[in-house]
């Protein structure tokens, strides 16, 4: 029986503000799952804490709403224990780049086969609009009493420096594009990171839907708005590191991604910035040590008989320690 979009919805009341960009992301995720016809029981959706992190409650898969900034380690623990799970982690920009930045960096290093999505709204939504690490310096959205004194981090370059092998950016109001991007991320073999520009109409009155859409930039001639957001695909940008991933090729693809990542303001690229499948996944690295890892990972190993007798034999260790 084919799965429908509605199979990925829950009856839980969604309490996001009207017009919140999170709705677009939620739709895109549900559409991706339906598109890929993933069995809800095979998917585990992890999140941190924040408006965006309420997401799992609205998606009919296993939904683990964890701690602020800690979605990644929870997700990784589950994925390592059972690599057959389709693991997706979502969270806010405060969650992922503020309190969770240490996990962000160190997760990239592993290249575990999973997908991480950040709702990038420039603010700490759920705690009433303080500046998040992606808010540009000097901006003063209505929720701040003084202009933001912190430089913004660059999520794309940060992800590159940390080793993510798929790096993309989407926009919450281009749901179809976003769906395709998320699907590519999920299908990517390795750690995929997707930064999603997400207007927060309640607190961020600067990076709004209208701003991204260029409603303040009307073309003199045509009278049309000129959106700030544009598609990398449209520029024939090629993000893919060609096998076998020679240093020169790598350097080229990384440099172009860095260059693109510093574009902002009038031209904001979305799409895939970088993809590299020449790097072994963490699962493969583990399998070198533990040959049966993929078939009988930690979560799927029986440890006792039905009557509770332990299966483990410590004879080898006892031999090593034996002193008689």
């Amino acid at each position, binding site marked *: 029986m084919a799965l429908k979009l509605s199979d990925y919805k*829950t009856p839980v009341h969604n309490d996001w503000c009207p017009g919140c960009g999170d709705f677009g992301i939620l739709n895109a995720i549900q559409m991706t799952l339906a598109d890929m016809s993933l069995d809800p*029981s*095979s998917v*585990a959706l*992890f999140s941190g*804490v924040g408006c965006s992190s*309420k997401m*799992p*409650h609205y998606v009919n898969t*296993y*939904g*683990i*709403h*964890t*701690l602020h900034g*800690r979605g*990644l*380690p*929870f997700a*990784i*623990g*589950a*994925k*390592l*224990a*059972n690599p*057959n*799970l389709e693991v997706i982690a979502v969270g806010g920009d405060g969650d992922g780049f503020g309190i969770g930045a*240490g996990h962000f960096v*160190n997760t990239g290093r592993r290249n575990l086969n999973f997908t991480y999505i950040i709702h990038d709204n420039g603010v700490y939504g759920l705690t009433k609009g303080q500046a998040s690490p992606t808010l540009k310096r000097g901006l003063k959205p209505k929720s701040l009493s003084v202009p933001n004194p912190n430089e913004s981090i660059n999520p794309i370059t940060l992800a590159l420096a940390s080793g993510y092998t798929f790096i993309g950016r989407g926009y919450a109001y281009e749901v179809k594009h976003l769906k395709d991007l998320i699907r590519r991320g999920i299908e990517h073999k390795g750690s995929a990171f997707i930064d999603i520009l997400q207007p927060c109409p309640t607190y961020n009155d600067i990076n709004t839907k209208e701003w991204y859409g260029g409603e303040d930039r009307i073309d003199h001639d045509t009278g049309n708005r000129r959106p700030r957001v544009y598609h990398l695909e449209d520029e024939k940008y090629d993000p893919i590191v060609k096998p076998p991933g020679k240093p020169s090729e790598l350097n080229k693809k990384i440099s172009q991604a860095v260059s693109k990542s510093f574009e902002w303001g009038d031209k904001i690229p979305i799409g895939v910035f970088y993809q590299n499948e020449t790097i072994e996944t963490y699962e493969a690295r*583990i399998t070198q*040590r*533990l040959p*049966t*890892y993929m078939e*009988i*990972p*930690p*979560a*799927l*190993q*029986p440890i*006792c*008989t*039905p009557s*509770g*007798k*332990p*299966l*483990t*034999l*410590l*004879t*080898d*260790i*006892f031999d090593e*320690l*034996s*002193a*008689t």
Partner: protein
Amino acid sequence: MIGGPQGSGVDSSANVFARACTLGGLFAFGKREYYSNIMGMHSYFQVRVNSNQIRSHNDRVDILTTFDTETVVRHSHEVVKGGAIIYDKELKDTNISEIPTLEKEVSRDLKTKLNKTGMDYSVYGLLENAKKSGVKLYPIPYSNLLKDVGDEIKEVKLSRIARIVNVMAVSASLSLLKFPEHLLHESISRIFGRKPKIIETNIIAAKKATKYVQDTFPSRPNSPLRVIKTKEPRIYLQGDQAVAMGKLLGGCRFQSYYPITPASDESVYMENHQLVKLDTDLLSECHDIKKGMKKGIGSALVMQAEDEIAAVNMAIGAGLAGARASTSTSGPGFSLMVEGLGWSGMNEVPLVVTLYQRGGPSTGLPTRTEQGDLQFALHASHGEFPRIVLASGDHEEAYYDAARAFNYAEKYQLPVIHLIDKALANSSATFPLFADRIHIDRGRIVSEKEIAKLNKEKVTYKRFSFTEAGVSPRVVLGTRGTTFWNTGDEHDEEGHISEDPENRTRMMEKRMGKMTLASKEIPYEERISSYGTGRSKICVISWGSIKGAILDAMEILKGEGEDIDFIHIRMLKPFASKHFLDLVNMKRTKVCIEMNYSGQLASYLRSECGIVMDHQIVKFNGRAMSCDEIVSSLKKLCKGTAPKRMVLTHGT
């Protein structure tokens, strides 16, 4: 006792000694002391051996085995009359003030001591002083012997084999004791395992040292050590190894950790034993066994995380997925784990955290022992949720507790904190092979079949259902046919956020109710042990690794006609109040012995059941209590001359 600079191989030579004795049918107990340093600071190992099981160190040194100056300087005064000091012939004239690693306090004390006896402040002075008090001196020409070995194995660069000086020193001590040489060689072979070249060199060194002692000191006294023949299979192991073994036996298949002293040794040991042998006979009793399993090899994944926050949360994630999962850490790491602990309590995820206590607060004394984290473990994390807190008294308990911790965690779906202290983690002892098979109880896990059945009956599975039994049956991530939700927020039966006050009250009662359930179901034997007749005037109460020293002290005191009773608390929470009150019997003198400043157990016992201690014996200088210290304080107690609070301070 053997000592030397950190990184020079003192550990393995102490191991050689203890293993040799164990091979000779004796029981050994070894205690390790070292600085928070990689190379150069002083470390030492005390080994006691006996024909009966021995469980603690004492304050006397019979043989001080040394090959550097510092060890002589720090320990020569501890050697008893009739004891011996083995030392490097060439070091005698070293100036003490040239030892850069000696604390000013130690220098000051030594100076005073030597001044009193009119001796020089020099190694010479110290050795003379020892001799005057009846200690025999055995100088060994290590560098000559080293050269001999070099010649024999054709190694010109002597610095490459400098480490074998250690083995020479140990060999010298064993030959002082007239211990059978072949056992020493056997011990060396076992310890250096699969490295034949190293074994060979070490045995050559051992032989040279033995021969030198035999030739040079023919009239050395007869040895108190007698080899015993025994058929009992025995192991000689360290505390942290016991924990790792218990975890593997108990079915732990995921361990995340972040390096920290003294906890990470356990994880490294597990990683070195990550491939797990399975009982193929029993395997055939299981259903639906995957092909990979049938080879009889399982595996435990050991994961080095980026910090302890990640470590604990990874373990919880793995627990959600259905693996028996744990993490090990020490105080500073545990401090970072408490937020995760609360989440697992709130979401009823089985989790085992092994907490290796060391000197606190903060980074404190990273390589020294303490029992300073009890109250923290009992109350760690904001808000209220159920938890089980265990503390093991010795290697054997550590082994079984580590295995059982997973039963508690899964049966009651809560975090279990397993306390170990550095003294236990880093001490080694001989034990009869741990032969009991434990029983594994995974609690109520709903299978895919059961879910299929529920689905057919159109019953929705709810992760946090209110049940008669008090525990909600759980499914693991990936179970086909259903889903569930988790959140750190208060939630309804399905796991969705709920702020409803009535639901809140019920959920709190359900979660906290599991403590009552656990307390009802877990047998007393796993929670409190008592030793002694139960009729003595003095009742000692304690927890953790002091157990060994107290038991040894009880034996000594018994020999002197003093009977002492001892209650050892192994499960701190839920605390078996009623059982404890029955045992403690109010009218006797109650004394609580623990390794911390404020008497944490005593204060906890007072809050749990109103018992007030008549005396408290505490120690917080980072050095484990010796049985001698306990003997002497209990003697004061017997005599009625003991103050209410006794602070022990022995140790170097």
